[in-house]
């Protein structure tokens, strides 16, 4: 009985981790005032680069490194475009998402001569923490996971502390809140926006690598399947408080893992697939309903929220 429950916890963590990396990327971008909806495409590229890297070098860790570096490079389009060139990050992101989808499919054909999915024999996945196997409870949860799983939570905590306690973190928060103020105090706003977005790219690379070399050992076309969008929703949900991201992402992980369970019990896959999106939206709705306050107060925001203006 206990084993069942712990394996469920493990499944939740597994599902949550890639989304958590991507959501951290999105939250950091939001802190510097870049509305980052390129997470989906960046994660997809990261997943592809990780598999391709692992296949070519024969080492999953090299694959991870390649995923991090190339996704960071990929995110330069968004970073420089939105920060230095003042282009609309939403339109760039729609473009890079399409580009990632096309390019991964294209390269899969050109480089490996397959389409649909790529899982060559001998493809190395990331090592699991099997040395934990004999530790009670922890072993049950983490022995089958890659180190990237606990690392994601460490990253979020580190980012939260860094933002709060360091002078660079202070500057970073200021850049998003009031860029003109930062600029008049001699802080290079463009540099902060650019670099934070690129770091976000690297995090999406990790998200993708965990997905394609950690959760499974295969790359399939469009394998992120909307996880990047869930991450965007998670960023909105926590509204600028990165330390709450794990909660939001674990919620998503629970929905996915629970859906998986239900599938095992005979529930149709289509409906369990839809559950994470429906639940994310419902939670978003629930947190935004003004449960208190008069009707008039509710009526007053009779104006649609604009994505560009919303939540920085």
């Amino acid at each position, binding site marked *: 009985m206990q084993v069942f429950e712990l394996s469920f916890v493990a499944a939740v963590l597994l599902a949550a981790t890639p989304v958590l990396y991507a959501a951290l990327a999105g939250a950091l971008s939001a802190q510097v005032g870049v509305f980052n909806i390129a997470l989906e495409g960046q994660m997809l590229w990261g997943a592809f680069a990780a598999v391709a890297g692992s296949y070519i070098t024969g080492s999953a860790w090299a694959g991870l490194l390649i995923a991090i570096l190339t996704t960071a490079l990929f995110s330069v389009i968004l970073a420089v475009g939105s920060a230095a060139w003042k282009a609309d990050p939403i339109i760039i992101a729609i473009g890079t998402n399409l580009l990632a989808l096309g390019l991964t499919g294209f390269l899969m054909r050109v480089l490996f001569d397959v389409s649909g999915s790529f899982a060559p024999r001998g493809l190395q996945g990331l090592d699991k923490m099997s040395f934990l196997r004999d530790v009670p409870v922890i072993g049950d949860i983490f022995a089958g996971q890659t180190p990237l799983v606990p690392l994601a939570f460490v990253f979020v905590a580190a980012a939260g502390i860094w933002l709060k*306690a360091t002078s660079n973190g202070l500057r970073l928060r200021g850049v998003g809140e009031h860029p003109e103020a930062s600029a008049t*105090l*001699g802080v290079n706003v463009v540099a902060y926006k650019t670099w934070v977005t690129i770091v976000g790219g690297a995090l999406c690379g990790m998200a993708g690598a965990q997905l394609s070399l950690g959760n499974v050992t295969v790359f399939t076309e469009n394998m992120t399947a909307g996880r990047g969008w869930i991450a965007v929703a998670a960023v909105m949900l926590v509204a600028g408080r990165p330390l709450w991201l794990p909660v939001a992402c674990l919620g998503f992980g629970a929905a996915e893992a629970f859906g998986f369970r239900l599938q095992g019990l005979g529930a149709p896959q289509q409906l369990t697939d839809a559950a994470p999106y429906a639940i994310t939206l419902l939670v978003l709705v629930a947190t935004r309903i003004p449960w208190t306050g008069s009707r008039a*107060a509710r009526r007053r925001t*009779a104006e649609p929220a604009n994505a560009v203006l919303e939540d920085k």
Partner: protein
Amino acid sequence: MTDAAVTLTGISKRYGAVVANDSVDLVLRRGSVHAVMGENGAGKSTLMSILFGLTEPDAGTIEVGGVERRFRGPADAIAAGLGMVHQHFRLFDSMSVAENVVYGAEPTRGALLDRRAAAERVRELSDRYGLGLDPDANVGRLSAGVRQRVEIVKALHREAEILILDEPSAVLTPDEVTSLFSVIRRAADAGTTVVLVTHKIQEVLAISDEVTVLRAGRVSGRFATAEVTGPQLIEAMTGRDVVPVSNAGARELGGIALSVDRATVVEQGITRLDDVSLTVRTGEIVGVAGVSGNGQHELVEAVLGAVALTSGTVEIAGTDVSSLDVRRRRLAGLAVIPEDRRGEGTAVTMTTAENITAGHHRSAPISGSGLAKGWLKRRAQREEATRLMADYDVRAESDQSLVGALSGGNAQKVVVARELSHGAPVLIAEQPTQGVDVGAIESIHTRLLEYRDAGRAVLLVSHEITELQALADRVVVLFAGRLVAEFSRAEATTARIGAAMTGGVTSGSGDAPEGRTA
């Protein structure tokens, strides 16, 4: 005393066809308070942007402490010992006073931000200049006066020897202005050079040691304050004897055109507008005075319907419009000149014709009638636009010019034409002359008086007491969202209005503001 802290020589800057600065020379003596005066558009802001490294001049040199400098950004200016307090504060509302002060020049301990040192620094500077700041207070919750002191400490923290204050009194109550002046004095006595950018003559005379006046981008006068008079400054600023437009007095008052009854607006738990009642009769201009941010904007938006009333009612021309949307309120007889021209008054990427007709596009002559209702007659739209542009002297290449390409004054005339030309019984004008040139101010003032004389009601919101005195038949004062005083035209002295703006004092006659409308 020729100890120059800063010497600007031959500064020129043009934006397209507009010459913002034309070989301006400016010498700031160390430890002095130097006023830079001029009307809107005279080039003060450009000059200060250049001095603070926000803009690079086309020509001219900047010397600080005898050394020629070239500022590529504000960071260079800060390093050279300059500090600037902008008119619109540049503060991080979510952060504490200490965080705001040290931002960009933080004390650190290892890799970490040294919060204790930051707080200590704020306390030290606050004590030295008598500012009374709490380092841990959240900046978003502070009043405008305290926020300004945070801005000053920001500059002092960076060891600024030259402090530029851009229109510092615009957001302050008269009391706060007095305490600001004592801070300025103390700083100057301690050796800081203070540049005071302003268009208010009383302030220049009260606090400065020297004055440089700008007109149309050029220096039009240089004085020692002790040797200059108000009229001399006015002449230097305007180049002529100004006969300000003035209100000859209302003729006959008609019935109540606009009635706001016990209006309250609560936003996110904060009461922005608190139980405000007022009426405006036809043939009357009622001025709304107050320091910016005391509920004026909420009052305007509540009457317009852009913000819903938490409680209370609004009647326009006898109709209760409290539950109607903006469009129906406008149809009921309301016109609004909004405060923020680029934010709410125009769409800068659309044509002048489209801007000048927007909002009237569902009625004749632009919209068809009967079966053609809802159809746009584009030729009629352009003809109407051309007519209005001629009537209101909007200078643009054509009716197809984008509003973003017009000057501030012309863009404002587009707004004025659109709102005035339909003769709505009630007009709300919120800061109608903000950021426009002298000529446009005069023409807008004349239009407002004519509008009233045509038997309509005008509610004029302004932060300029002089503008209210020139135009209003009656002045009410808002403080902290409440209507705290009401003055007849004769009673509306600067001292009385100023006192009421601080919220401390009651009105000139009695303390029942709603009671005096008849």
